[in-house]
C-alpha cells in the first residue's frame, strides 16, 4: 500500500482516540478511499491488518455503506439527489439532462471514463432542490439547463472536480 504520509499521519492520530480499535474501521475506510480514490482488495486487507481485524470485517462494512466504493469513479463524480423533495423540484429531468450530455445512463461511468453519474438519496438540502454533488462540492437549484451547462464544462475539463 502506497498511502500518502499525511494519510498515515491522520490514521495514526485517529486510532488511539477511540475507546475500541474497531471503531476506527469506518473512519479508516474514508481516509484510505480519499487517498486512493476507492477501496481495493489490498486496501481493505491493509485496513484490517492495521486494526488487528480480519479482512471480512472491513469488506462487510464496505459492502454496507453506499459511499464506500470498490471501484474508481470517472474523473468527475456526479451525484444527483432523487428523493421526493428534489424530485418534486425536477431532479429526474435534471438527471436526464446529464444522461443526454454525458451519453451515459445514471448508475454508470461514461465510456471515456470522464464521468460517473449516480442517483443518491436525500442530501438534507431539500429546500434548494434539485441538489447535485460533483465530488465533494454541492450545487443547488440545478435545473436541466444548468445541468447541461455544467456537463459542457466538465466535458471540456473546465469544471471543478470537487476533490
Amino acid at each position, binding site marked *: 500500500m502506497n498511502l500518502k504520509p499525511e494519510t498515515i499521519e491522520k490514521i495514526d492520530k485517529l486510532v488511539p482516540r477511540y475507546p475500541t480499535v474497531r471503531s476506527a474501521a469506518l*473512519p479508516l475506510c474514508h481516509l484510505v478511499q480519499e487517498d486512493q480514490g476507492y477501496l481495493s482488495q489490498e486496501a481493505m486487507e491493509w485496513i484490517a491488518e492495521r486494526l488487528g481485524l480480519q479482512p471480512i470485517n472491513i469488506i462487510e462494512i464496505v459492502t454496507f*455503506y453506499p459511499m464506500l466504493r470498490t471501484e474508481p469513479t470517472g474523473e468527475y463524480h456526479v451525484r444527483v439527489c432523487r*428523493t421526493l423533495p428534489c424530485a418534486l423540484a425536477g431532479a*429526474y429531468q435534471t438527471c436526464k439532462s446529464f444522461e443526454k450530455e454525458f451519453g451515459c445512463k445514471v448508475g454508470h461511468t461514461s465510456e471515456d471514463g470522464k464521468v460517473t453519474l449516480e442517483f443518491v438519496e436525500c*442530501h*438534507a438540502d431539500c429546500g434548494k432542490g434539485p441538489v447535485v454533488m460533483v465530488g*465533494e462540492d454541492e450545487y443547488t437549484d440545478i435545473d436541466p439547463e444548468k445541468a447541461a451547462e455544467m456537463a459542457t464544462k466538465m466535458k471540456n475539463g473546465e469544471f471543478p472536480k470537487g476533490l
Partner: protein
Amino acid sequence: MAPQETRLIFKHIDEEGYTNDIDCYVKNGGYEQLKKAVTMKPEDICAEVLTSGVRGRGGAGFPAGMKWKFLDRKSGKPIYLVCNADESEPGTFKDRQIIHQDPHQLIEGMMCAAFAIQAKLAFIYIRGEFFQGYKILERAIEEAREKNFLGDNILGSGYSCDIIVHRGAGAYICGEETGLIESLEGFRANPRIKPPYFPAALGAYQCPTIVNNVETLCDVKHIIEMGGEGFAKIGTPGNTGTRIWCVSGHVQKPGYYEFACSDVTLGQLIYDVCGGLKPGRKLKAVIPGGSSAKILRADERFTGKLKDGTEFDWGIEDIPMDFDSLMAVGSMSGSGGVIVMDDTTDMVEALANINYFYAHESCGQCTPCREGVPWMRKVTQRMVDGEAREEDADLLKSIADQIAGRTICAFGEAASWPVQSFIAKFKDEFVEKAKEQAARRKEGQEVAKETTLI
C-alpha cells in the same frame, strides 16, 4: 399578516456578517452558558432540562430530560454522549444549517449536556455527505479546545471531555440510534433489539449512552440560559420551545423557519410564510414530518380530542404545528420536514419515489422489512411502468400492514406509514391508474405515461 418567527436556535442563521468561527460566536455571547453550567451541579442541569419539557427534535419527540433520567448510573461504567447529526430523513435540512453556520452553538450545547450527564467522551455522528460540515466541525472543535471549552479540565472545573466527529457513509439507517451505535463501533449499522439495548442502559461499547439530535442539544444551551421554566413558557404545555420547520416541495419559498411550538398553523406556514403555491395550483397533500410521516390530504376534515381533552375540528390549514396536534390528526411532527404537494402531483409516482428510498435503505436484518419493503417498491414501480392492477392498492396495504410492528427497529413503521396513509387517502388514484392504463391498452396506445417523480 404572516405570523412572527421566534428564532432561538436559528438566531444567527443567515445573519449578515455572522461567521462560523469562535471569535464571532464569543462576541455574540457564546460559551457564557457553558461557563455557567460548569459551576452548577450536574444533577441540577438535568433537573432544568426535565422541567423544560424539551422533546427530542430527531423524530420520536421523546422528552430529553426523561431520557437522561433513564441513564444507568449504578453500573459505574463510563457514560457517553452522542450527537445524532446523521440528518437523513427526507425533507429535513435544519441540522445542516447549524453545523455550517453556527457550529459552536452545537458544541456549547453538547458540552453543557456532557457535563450534565457527566459523559466521559462525546461523539458527533455526522452523515458522510456533509463533507464541508465535517471540516467545519473539526475546525470548530480545535478552536474550542484552544480556549479550553472542551478537552482536559474544562474552564478549570475539573471536568474533562472531548468530542470525536465520526462520519457515516451514506446509510439512512445510521440515524436510528442503535444502528448509529453499531456503526460507531465499527460494524454494519444493524439496529439492536430493545429491550435490552436501550442506549441509556446499554449503548455504545455496552455502556450507558445518551443519543440526542443536533437541535435538541442546542436547546440545552438555551435551557441553561432561560432556566427550565423559562424555556417551558415558549410554546404550549407538552410542546415547549421552538421547532424548525423545513419546508420543501411545491411552495414559492421553500426554506427553514423557526416558530414557537403551536405559534403557526400549517396553512399559515404554507401560504403566509412560504408564499403559497405556484400560480394557478391548488394544495393537494402535505407530509408534515419527514417522508416517514403519514400524509395529510388537503380536503380532509380532522376531528377528535387532544391530550388535554379539548375537541378539535380542523381543515388541513388549521392544524397547529406542534407535536401533539400533528399526532392528533394521525401523523407526526417527526423531524420537522414539511413536504408540500400541489394538484399536479401524481400520488402513485410520489409513493413510488418514497418506496424506492426505503427499499434502498433497509438494513436487511428483519425478514418483513428486507423482503416487504422492496416488494412494495416493485409494486409501485410496476404501476408507473404501465402494469398497474386494480387490486394493487389492497396488495400494498396488506404488505405494509405485515411489516409495521414486526421489526427490530422503527424503520419498519417508517417504511409502512407512507404506504398505509397514501392508500388510505388516495386509493382512488391507485385504482384509477390501473383503469386508465387498461383503457389505453385497449385502444392500442402507449400504456405508461411519462413520469416525473420516479
